[in-house]
């Protein structure tokens, strides 16, 4: 089975914050989250899509997904966890409880606030994940990377050609992801900021798939303004 998991929140730091998360803001004529779900719905290789949202936004998510007709048989709503990785793992636990997990099952995890995802990137993730077991979507670093370990002066300027910027999707064999994550200590889990690191920490290679510069993450209002600026309205032949 090929699963997609759309990560639509779940950060504990947002608990108590009544601001609407960015994935629910409008981009063109629909909420960002709906655009992202549509991209996966339109890929016939994806068997099931999990949309993982914070508990307090569960009913709201259900309402807008119904309103925009994306809450289909292939789509399942799941409550997120306290961290990004816990949110991913909640999706895996949901899969295990509902359908069980086999060694062939893979999961394509994607930020809900990256609605410009292309079918090419999704397909490349699926192909590479089926072949290699763990995949990260990246683009070559454009700006020079500057390291400062004291946050005051430059300690190193690495060779740019070896550096990439991470995007999503990140895709994994579910059984291996679960097994590696469960083997981590609580301290190790605390320092994990990225799901791919679960693999690299344990010495497992993660294959690179090329993203696109425009596969942007809408996190600030500036990003939303940019996203709306590059999107042309309601077209129909």
């Amino acid at each position, binding site marked *: 089975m090929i699963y997609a998991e759309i990560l639509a929140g779940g950060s504990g730091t947002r608990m108590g914050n009544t601001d609407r998360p960015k994935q629910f803001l409008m*981009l*063109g*004529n*629909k909420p960002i989250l709906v*655009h992202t779900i*549509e*991209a996966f*719905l*339109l*890929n*016939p290789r994806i068997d099931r899509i999990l949309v993982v949202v914070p508990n307090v936004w569960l009913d709201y998510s259900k309402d807008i997904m119904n309103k925009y007709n994306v809450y289909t048989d292939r789509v399942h709503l799941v409550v997120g966890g306290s961290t990004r990785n816990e949110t991913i793992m909640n999706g895996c636990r949901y899969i295990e409880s509902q359908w069980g997990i086999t060694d062939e099952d893979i999961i394509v995890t994607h930020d809900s606030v990256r*609605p*410009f995802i*292309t*079918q*090419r990137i999704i*397909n490349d993730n699926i192909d590479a994940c089926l072949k290699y077991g763990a995949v990260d979507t990246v683009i070559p670093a454009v700006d020079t990377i500057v390291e400062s370990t004291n946050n005051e002066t430059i300690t190193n300027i690495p060779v740019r050609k070896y550096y990439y910027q991470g995007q999503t999707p990140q895709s994994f064999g579910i059984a291996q992801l679960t097994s590696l994550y469960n083997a981590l200590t609580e301290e190790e889990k605390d320092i994990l900021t990225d799901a791919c690191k679960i693999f690299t920490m344990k010495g497992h290679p993660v294959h690179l798939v090329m993203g696109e510069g*425009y596969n942007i993450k809408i996190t600030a209002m500036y990003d939303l303004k940019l996203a709306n600026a*590059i*999107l*042309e*309205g*309601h*077209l*129909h*032949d």
Partner: protein
Amino acid sequence: MINQRYRLISPKIIRVDFTEDAIGEKDVVVRPQYLSICAADQRYYQGLREKAILDKKLPMCLIHEAVGEIVYDPKGEYPTGTLVAMVPNIACDNDETIKENYRLTSKFSSSSEDGFMRSLVTIDRSRIVECGNLKGRCASLLEPMSVAMNAYDVCFRKYNRHPKSIGVWGDGSIGFVVALVMKKMIPGCEVSVIGTNPEKLEYFSFCDHQYMIDTVPCMSQFDACFECVGGPASSKAINQMIDCIKPQGILSLMGVSEHPVEVNTRMVLEKGLTLVGHSRSSVQDFKDCVELMQSKPEISNYLESIISDEVVIRSITDMYEAFDKDRSNRFKTVMKWEM
């Protein structure tokens, strides 16, 4: 749905645009699989159209020869994965007195509307034709086949005519599909191809005769002639056709020329010829082609022989490569679309 449209913005420059496409109840969503480059696309790409035309039409997605798989049908009529050809002609009224591809109100993908160089195509279900068991790569040539079928329909089927000999001028892709359709649709008809390139003429193995333009025996032998040359050479070809066609024959014009073409009208009058123009095709022409290709599997093999190159498209750079390679390819360049 957010879609990516790969539009020619000026000669040799393609840009990705993001559009929010509406999916209506009558629509289906198709993911393109194989797209074939036509000379018309190449003229836009190279900037060979008049500047006023380019200014009016660009930015625009190119390509009107394309097949793809259904990825979403709101009505559930088409199973996901069904291979379909997309019909570029968009009929905008129901005037039954004029065939849909000749109505002045009709639109056309890659001329008056965006073509099929898109990540996904939302298209009215009346404009798709199921390809049955045809292979996608070969089925991408259904559109030029349908143009040939339209010519057959207008010249012969409509008037129940049964020509015994046909001459096709032009050894390019359109000449090939016209000769092929005529040979297969009119049993017993002798089809000759007249061209300038001996190597290309050898591909026309199903024809009864292959002639170089300076060796064709011009003794009023053809019941009907098809001009598939276009460009500056049109005039020479048409005038040779006028010499070679029987009195009261049908002379079909299919090649596009950017400039007015000189024609020996005196002989047209003397011989009482009928000059007919052919362009584009209808949904029914596509359906007739699928039926023909399924009943005669050898047609797919012939079409495969004129796919000179297949370029996998995963970036805009790949698109440039495909259009550049197409210029030096003998026949068709097909893009395997993975955008």
